[in-house]
Protein backbone atom coordinates (compact mmCIF):
# COMPACT_ATOMS: atom_id res chain seq x y z
CA UNK A 1 0.00 0.00 0.00
CA UNK A 2 3.07 2.22 -0.03
CA UNK A 3 2.03 4.01 -3.19
CA UNK A 4 -1.46 4.83 -2.02
CA UNK A 5 -0.44 6.66 1.13
CA UNK A 6 0.81 9.66 -0.82
CA UNK A 7 -2.25 9.87 -3.05
CA UNK A 8 -5.40 11.83 -2.58
CA UNK A 9 -7.60 8.76 -2.74
CA UNK A 10 -10.40 9.07 -0.24
CA UNK A 11 -10.15 5.36 0.48
CA UNK A 12 -6.44 5.63 1.29
CA UNK A 13 -7.34 6.96 4.71
CA UNK A 14 -9.30 3.79 5.45
CA UNK A 15 -7.58 1.43 3.08
CA UNK A 16 -8.83 -1.69 4.81
CA UNK A 17 -12.37 -0.62 5.28
CA UNK A 18 -12.74 -1.61 1.66
CA UNK A 19 -15.74 -2.40 -0.53
CA UNK A 20 -17.57 0.84 0.08
CA UNK A 21 -15.71 2.40 -2.86
CA UNK A 22 -16.13 -0.66 -5.05
CA UNK A 23 -18.74 -0.50 -7.76
CA UNK A 24 -18.53 -4.15 -8.82
CA UNK A 25 -18.33 -7.11 -6.48
CA UNK A 26 -15.74 -8.51 -8.93
CA UNK A 27 -13.41 -5.57 -8.40
CA UNK A 28 -10.56 -6.92 -6.29
CA UNK A 29 -9.08 -4.66 -3.65
CA UNK A 30 -5.50 -5.04 -4.93
CA UNK A 31 -6.40 -3.15 -8.11
CA UNK A 32 -6.67 0.60 -7.84
CA UNK A 33 -9.33 0.92 -10.49
CA UNK A 34 -11.60 -1.28 -12.56
CA UNK A 35 -9.70 -0.17 -15.66
CA UNK A 36 -6.47 -1.41 -14.14
CA UNK A 37 -8.02 -4.74 -13.21
CA UNK A 38 -9.36 -5.14 -16.72
CA UNK A 39 -6.00 -4.25 -18.25
CA UNK A 40 -4.23 -6.78 -16.04
CA UNK A 41 -6.72 -9.45 -17.13
CA UNK A 42 -6.20 -8.73 -20.83
CA UNK A 43 -2.45 -8.70 -20.33
CA UNK A 44 -2.51 -12.13 -18.68
CA UNK A 45 -4.75 -13.53 -21.40
CA UNK A 46 -2.41 -12.27 -24.10
CA UNK A 47 0.59 -13.83 -22.36
CA UNK A 48 -1.25 -17.17 -22.48
CA UNK A 49 -2.04 -16.65 -26.17
CA UNK A 50 1.65 -15.94 -26.88
CA UNK A 51 2.51 -19.40 -25.51
CA UNK A 52 -0.16 -20.75 -27.87
CA UNK A 53 1.49 -18.95 -30.80
CA UNK A 54 4.76 -20.71 -29.94
CA UNK A 55 2.96 -24.06 -29.62
CA UNK A 56 1.16 -23.92 -32.98
CA UNK A 57 4.18 -22.17 -34.49
CA UNK A 58 6.28 -25.27 -33.88
CA UNK A 59 3.77 -27.38 -35.82
CA UNK A 60 3.67 -24.85 -38.66
CA UNK A 61 7.44 -24.83 -38.79
CA UNK A 62 7.60 -28.64 -38.99
CA UNK A 63 5.15 -28.45 -41.89
CA UNK A 64 7.24 -25.81 -43.69
CA UNK A 65 10.42 -27.83 -43.34
CA UNK A 66 9.06 -31.23 -44.40
CA UNK A 67 7.18 -29.66 -47.28
CA UNK A 68 10.49 -28.38 -48.63
CA UNK A 69 12.22 -31.73 -48.11
CA UNK A 70 9.52 -33.98 -49.60
CA UNK A 71 7.82 -31.51 -51.93
CA UNK A 72 6.34 -34.03 -54.50
CA UNK A 73 4.76 -36.13 -51.73
CA UNK A 74 3.35 -33.04 -49.99
CA UNK A 75 1.93 -31.65 -53.24
CA UNK A 76 -0.05 -34.79 -54.19
CA UNK A 77 -1.14 -35.46 -50.59
CA UNK A 78 -2.33 -31.86 -50.15
CA UNK A 79 -4.47 -32.18 -53.27
CA UNK A 80 -6.35 -35.08 -51.65
CA UNK A 81 -7.92 -32.73 -49.11
CA UNK A 82 -11.50 -31.62 -49.59
CA UNK A 83 -11.41 -27.93 -50.59
CA UNK A 84 -15.22 -27.32 -50.59
CA UNK A 85 -15.54 -28.69 -47.05
CA UNK A 86 -12.47 -26.73 -45.93
CA UNK A 87 -13.83 -23.51 -47.46
CA UNK A 88 -17.28 -24.01 -45.89
CA UNK A 89 -15.59 -24.64 -42.56
CA UNK A 90 -13.64 -21.39 -42.90
CA UNK A 91 -16.90 -19.49 -43.43
CA UNK A 92 -18.51 -21.34 -40.49
CA UNK A 93 -15.60 -20.47 -38.20
CA UNK A 94 -15.55 -16.80 -39.26
CA UNK A 95 -19.31 -16.68 -38.54
CA UNK A 96 -18.67 -18.18 -35.12
CA UNK A 97 -16.02 -15.51 -34.44
CA UNK A 98 -18.40 -12.77 -35.62
CA UNK A 99 -21.09 -13.98 -33.17
CA UNK A 100 -18.48 -14.06 -30.38
CA UNK A 101 -17.46 -10.46 -31.18
CA UNK A 102 -21.13 -9.40 -31.09
CA UNK A 103 -21.45 -11.25 -27.78
CA UNK A 104 -18.66 -9.12 -26.28
CA UNK A 105 -20.50 -6.02 -27.50
CA UNK A 106 -23.76 -7.27 -25.98
CA UNK A 107 -22.03 -7.76 -22.61
CA UNK A 108 -20.50 -4.27 -22.80
CA UNK A 109 -23.88 -2.63 -23.43
CA UNK A 110 -25.57 -4.96 -20.90
CA UNK A 111 -27.99 -6.67 -23.27
CA UNK A 112 -28.46 -10.01 -21.52
CA UNK A 113 -30.79 -11.70 -24.01
CA UNK A 114 -28.65 -10.80 -27.01
CA UNK A 115 -25.49 -11.96 -25.20
CA UNK A 116 -27.01 -15.39 -24.50
CA UNK A 117 -28.23 -15.66 -28.11
CA UNK A 118 -24.77 -14.79 -29.47
CA UNK A 119 -23.05 -17.29 -27.16
CA UNK A 120 -25.48 -19.99 -28.29
CA UNK A 121 -24.80 -19.13 -31.96
CA UNK A 122 -21.04 -19.14 -31.34
CA UNK A 123 -21.40 -22.64 -29.87
CA UNK A 124 -23.65 -23.75 -32.72
CA UNK A 125 -21.20 -22.69 -35.45
CA UNK A 126 -18.37 -24.29 -33.47
CA UNK A 127 -20.25 -27.60 -33.40
CA UNK A 128 -21.00 -27.35 -37.15
CA UNK A 129 -17.28 -26.88 -37.76
CA UNK A 130 -16.44 -29.99 -35.74
CA UNK A 131 -19.13 -31.98 -37.59
CA UNK A 132 -17.70 -31.08 -41.00
CA UNK A 133 -14.20 -31.82 -39.69
CA UNK A 134 -15.38 -35.26 -38.56
CA UNK A 135 -16.78 -35.92 -42.04
CA UNK A 136 -13.39 -35.02 -43.54
CA UNK A 137 -11.59 -37.33 -41.10
CA UNK A 138 -14.00 -40.11 -42.06
CA UNK A 139 -13.18 -39.56 -45.74
CA UNK A 140 -9.46 -39.95 -44.91
CA UNK A 141 -10.28 -43.18 -43.06
CA UNK A 142 -12.17 -44.58 -46.06
CA UNK A 143 -9.32 -43.67 -48.44
CA UNK A 144 -6.71 -45.27 -46.12
CA UNK A 145 -5.05 -41.90 -45.69
CA UNK A 146 -4.55 -42.17 -41.94
CA UNK A 147 -0.81 -42.76 -41.25
CA UNK A 148 0.00 -46.17 -39.85
CA UNK A 149 -0.37 -49.86 -40.65
CA UNK A 150 -3.41 -49.48 -42.95
CA UNK A 151 -2.04 -46.48 -44.86
CA UNK A 152 -2.16 -46.96 -48.66
CA UNK A 153 0.16 -45.26 -51.13
CA UNK A 154 -1.55 -46.84 -54.18
CA UNK A 155 -3.33 -43.61 -55.12
CA UNK A 156 0.00 -41.78 -55.28
CA UNK A 157 1.99 -44.50 -57.06
CA UNK A 158 -0.81 -45.34 -59.54
CA UNK A 159 -3.05 -42.27 -59.76
CA UNK A 160 -6.59 -43.12 -60.92
CA UNK A 161 -7.48 -42.24 -64.53
CA UNK A 162 -9.80 -39.26 -64.92
CA UNK A 163 -12.60 -40.47 -67.28
CA UNK A 164 -13.00 -37.00 -68.83
CA UNK A 165 -9.40 -36.52 -69.91
CA UNK A 166 -8.37 -40.20 -70.19
CA UNK A 167 -5.26 -39.31 -68.18
CA UNK A 168 -4.50 -39.33 -64.45
CA UNK A 169 -5.02 -36.00 -62.66
CA UNK A 170 -1.72 -36.30 -60.85
CA UNK A 171 1.74 -37.38 -61.94
CA UNK A 172 2.65 -40.74 -60.35
CA UNK A 173 5.47 -40.52 -57.80
CA UNK A 174 8.07 -43.16 -56.86
CA UNK A 175 7.12 -45.58 -54.05
CA UNK A 176 9.77 -44.27 -51.62
CA UNK A 177 8.64 -40.66 -52.13
CA UNK A 178 5.00 -41.83 -51.92
CA UNK A 179 5.70 -43.15 -48.41
CA UNK A 180 6.40 -39.56 -47.34
CA UNK A 181 2.75 -38.67 -47.97
CA UNK A 182 2.29 -40.25 -44.52
CA UNK A 183 4.28 -37.33 -43.09
CA UNK A 184 1.88 -34.89 -44.70
CA UNK A 185 -1.14 -36.71 -43.29
CA UNK A 186 0.52 -37.03 -39.89
CA UNK A 187 1.03 -33.25 -39.80
CA UNK A 188 -2.48 -32.71 -41.17
CA UNK A 189 -4.00 -34.73 -38.32
CA UNK A 190 -1.66 -33.23 -35.71
CA UNK A 191 -2.40 -29.65 -36.72
CA UNK A 192 -6.13 -29.88 -37.43
CA UNK A 193 -6.49 -32.25 -34.46
CA UNK A 194 -4.87 -29.81 -32.01
CA UNK A 195 -7.02 -27.05 -33.52
CA UNK A 196 -10.16 -29.16 -33.07
CA UNK A 197 -9.10 -30.00 -29.50
CA UNK A 198 -8.87 -26.28 -28.73
CA UNK A 199 -12.37 -25.85 -30.16
CA UNK A 200 -13.76 -28.72 -28.07
CA UNK A 201 -12.30 -27.13 -24.91
CA UNK A 202 -13.71 -23.77 -26.03
CA UNK A 203 -17.19 -25.20 -26.56
CA UNK A 204 -17.07 -26.70 -23.07
CA UNK A 205 -16.23 -23.25 -21.65
CA UNK A 206 -18.95 -21.70 -23.83
CA UNK A 207 -21.62 -23.92 -22.22
CA UNK A 208 -20.48 -22.71 -18.81
CA UNK A 209 -20.34 -19.04 -19.89
CA UNK A 210 -23.77 -19.29 -21.54
CA UNK A 211 -25.22 -20.62 -18.28
CA UNK A 212 -23.62 -17.81 -16.27
CA UNK A 213 -24.72 -15.22 -18.85
CA UNK A 214 -28.25 -16.62 -18.58
CA UNK A 215 -28.10 -15.98 -14.82
CA UNK A 216 -27.21 -12.36 -15.62
CA UNK A 217 -23.61 -12.40 -14.38
CA UNK A 218 -22.18 -10.59 -17.42
CA UNK A 219 -24.88 -8.02 -18.12
CA UNK A 220 -24.11 -5.87 -15.10
CA UNK A 221 -20.81 -4.29 -16.11
CA UNK A 222 -18.62 -7.34 -15.47
CA UNK A 223 -17.40 -8.28 -18.95
CA UNK A 224 -13.91 -9.74 -18.35
CA UNK A 225 -14.73 -13.48 -18.68
CA UNK A 226 -16.63 -12.90 -21.94
CA UNK A 227 -13.93 -10.59 -23.28
CA UNK A 228 -11.05 -12.94 -22.43
CA UNK A 229 -12.84 -15.99 -23.76
CA UNK A 230 -13.45 -13.97 -26.93
CA UNK A 231 -9.68 -13.48 -27.24
CA UNK A 232 -9.18 -17.25 -26.99
CA UNK A 233 -11.91 -18.01 -29.52
CA UNK A 234 -10.56 -15.49 -32.05
CA UNK A 235 -7.08 -16.91 -31.59
CA UNK A 236 -8.38 -20.37 -32.51
CA UNK A 237 -9.99 -18.75 -35.59
CA UNK A 238 -6.64 -17.25 -36.60
CA UNK A 239 -4.93 -20.65 -36.41
CA UNK A 240 -7.50 -22.00 -38.86
CA UNK A 241 -7.05 -18.96 -41.16
CA UNK A 242 -3.47 -20.20 -41.65
CA UNK A 243 -4.20 -23.95 -41.62
CA UNK A 244 -6.75 -23.76 -44.44
CA UNK A 245 -4.55 -22.21 -47.18
CA UNK A 246 -1.36 -23.99 -46.10
CA UNK A 247 -2.86 -27.49 -45.93
CA UNK A 248 -5.61 -27.35 -48.57
CA UNK A 249 -4.82 -24.71 -51.15
CA UNK A 250 -1.20 -24.01 -52.02
CA UNK A 251 -0.74 -27.01 -54.34
CA UNK A 252 -4.00 -26.84 -56.30
CA UNK A 253 -2.63 -25.04 -59.36
CA UNK A 254 -0.52 -27.83 -60.96
CA UNK A 255 -3.68 -29.86 -61.65
CA UNK A 256 -3.61 -30.51 -65.37
Amino acid at each position, binding site marked *: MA*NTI*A*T*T*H*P*EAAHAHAHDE*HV*VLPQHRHHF*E*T*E*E*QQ*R*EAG*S*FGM*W*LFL*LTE*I*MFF*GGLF*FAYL*LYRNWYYPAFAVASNQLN*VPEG*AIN*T*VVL*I*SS*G*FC*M*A*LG*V*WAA*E*VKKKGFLVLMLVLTTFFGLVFLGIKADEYHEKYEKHHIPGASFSVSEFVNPPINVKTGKPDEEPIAPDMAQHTQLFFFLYFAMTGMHAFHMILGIGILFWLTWRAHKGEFSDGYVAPI*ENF*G*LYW*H*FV*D*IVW*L*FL*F*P*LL*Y*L*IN*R*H*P*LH
Partner: protein
Amino acid sequence: MSAHIEHHDPANVVNPEHAEHHIVSPLEYTYVFAFLLLFTGVTVGAAYFNLGALNPILALAIASTKAVVVILFFMHVKYQSRLIKMTVGAGFFTFFVLIMMTMADYISRAWGTW
Protein backbone atom coordinates in the same frame (compact mmCIF):
# COMPACT_ATOMS: atom_id res chain seq x y z
CA MET B 1 -16.54 4.08 -13.24
CA SER B 2 -16.43 7.87 -13.21
CA ALA B 3 -16.13 7.86 -9.42
CA HIS B 4 -12.75 6.23 -9.79
CA ILE B 5 -11.52 8.69 -12.37
CA GLU B 6 -12.33 11.59 -10.05
CA HIS B 7 -9.81 10.49 -7.47
CA HIS B 8 -7.35 9.29 -10.03
CA ASP B 9 -3.76 10.04 -9.09
CA PRO B 10 -2.04 11.82 -12.01
CA ALA B 11 1.40 11.17 -10.52
CA ASN B 12 0.87 7.44 -10.90
CA VAL B 13 2.19 6.71 -14.38
CA VAL B 14 3.36 3.17 -13.61
CA ASN B 15 -0.06 1.60 -13.43
CA PRO B 16 -1.72 1.19 -16.82
CA GLU B 17 -4.98 2.71 -15.72
CA HIS B 18 -4.99 5.41 -18.35
CA ALA B 19 -6.38 3.22 -21.11
CA GLU B 20 -9.67 4.59 -22.36
CA HIS B 21 -12.19 1.82 -22.59
CA HIS B 22 -13.55 1.63 -26.10
CA ILE B 23 -16.55 -0.43 -27.19
CA VAL B 24 -16.30 -1.64 -30.78
CA SER B 25 -19.65 -1.20 -32.53
CA PRO B 26 -21.61 -4.01 -34.26
CA LEU B 27 -21.31 -2.11 -37.54
CA GLU B 28 -17.53 -2.22 -37.29
CA TYR B 29 -17.71 -5.97 -36.57
CA THR B 30 -19.95 -6.42 -39.62
CA TYR B 31 -17.38 -4.71 -41.87
CA VAL B 32 -14.68 -7.03 -40.48
CA PHE B 33 -16.93 -10.06 -41.05
CA ALA B 34 -17.58 -9.03 -44.68
CA PHE B 35 -13.85 -8.41 -45.22
CA LEU B 36 -12.97 -11.87 -43.90
CA LEU B 37 -15.60 -13.57 -46.08
CA LEU B 38 -14.43 -11.66 -49.17
CA PHE B 39 -10.80 -12.61 -48.66
CA THR B 40 -11.70 -16.25 -47.97
CA GLY B 41 -13.27 -16.26 -51.45
CA VAL B 42 -10.20 -14.54 -52.95
CA THR B 43 -7.77 -17.05 -51.44
CA VAL B 44 -9.79 -20.06 -52.68
CA GLY B 45 -10.10 -18.54 -56.16
CA ALA B 46 -6.41 -17.62 -56.38
CA ALA B 47 -5.41 -21.20 -55.52
CA TYR B 48 -6.71 -22.44 -58.89
CA PHE B 49 -4.56 -20.05 -60.95
CA ASN B 50 -1.01 -21.14 -61.64
CA LEU B 51 1.07 -18.28 -60.26
CA GLY B 52 4.18 -20.41 -59.74
CA ALA B 53 6.13 -19.46 -56.62
CA LEU B 54 3.63 -16.68 -55.95
CA ASN B 55 0.83 -19.14 -54.99
CA PRO B 56 2.04 -19.87 -51.44
CA ILE B 57 3.23 -16.27 -51.00
CA LEU B 58 -0.18 -14.89 -51.97
CA ALA B 59 -1.97 -17.45 -49.76
CA LEU B 60 0.20 -16.49 -46.77
CA ALA B 61 -0.18 -12.76 -47.48
CA ILE B 62 -3.99 -13.07 -47.50
CA ALA B 63 -3.98 -15.23 -44.35
CA SER B 64 -1.71 -12.72 -42.57
CA THR B 65 -3.91 -9.78 -43.60
CA LYS B 66 -7.00 -11.58 -42.27
CA ALA B 67 -5.17 -12.42 -39.04
CA VAL B 68 -4.10 -8.78 -38.53
CA VAL B 69 -7.69 -7.59 -39.07
CA VAL B 70 -8.99 -10.15 -36.55
CA ILE B 71 -6.33 -9.12 -34.01
CA LEU B 72 -6.95 -5.39 -34.43
CA PHE B 73 -10.76 -5.40 -34.37
CA PHE B 74 -12.23 -8.69 -33.09
CA MET B 75 -9.52 -8.83 -30.43
CA HIS B 76 -9.65 -5.04 -29.80
CA VAL B 77 -5.88 -4.54 -29.96
CA LYS B 78 -6.35 -1.32 -31.95
CA TYR B 79 -8.11 0.21 -28.94
CA GLN B 80 -5.92 -1.24 -26.19
CA SER B 81 -3.17 0.42 -24.18
CA ARG B 82 0.45 0.48 -25.27
CA LEU B 83 1.24 -2.31 -22.82
CA ILE B 84 -1.08 -4.72 -24.63
CA LYS B 85 0.08 -3.58 -28.07
CA MET B 86 3.70 -4.09 -27.07
CA THR B 87 2.91 -7.51 -25.61
CA VAL B 88 1.24 -8.71 -28.81
CA GLY B 89 3.99 -7.23 -30.98
CA ALA B 90 6.75 -8.72 -28.82
CA GLY B 91 5.14 -12.16 -29.06
CA PHE B 92 4.98 -12.16 -32.84
CA PHE B 93 8.47 -10.68 -33.07
CA THR B 94 9.89 -13.45 -30.86
CA PHE B 95 8.13 -16.06 -32.97
CA PHE B 96 9.61 -14.46 -36.13
CA VAL B 97 13.13 -14.56 -34.61
CA LEU B 98 12.75 -18.24 -33.68
CA ILE B 99 11.58 -19.16 -37.19
CA MET B 100 14.35 -17.18 -38.87
CA MET B 101 17.10 -18.66 -36.67
CA THR B 102 15.87 -22.21 -37.26
CA MET B 103 15.55 -21.57 -40.99
CA ALA B 104 19.09 -20.19 -41.12
CA ASP B 105 20.29 -23.37 -39.43
CA TYR B 106 18.55 -25.73 -41.86
CA ILE B 107 19.52 -23.74 -44.95
CA SER B 108 23.20 -23.68 -43.97
CA ARG B 109 23.51 -27.34 -42.85
CA ALA B 110 24.81 -28.55 -46.21
CA TRP B 111 26.49 -25.27 -47.14
CA GLY B 112 28.97 -25.76 -50.01
CA THR B 113 28.26 -29.47 -50.47
CA TRP B 114 25.64 -29.18 -53.22
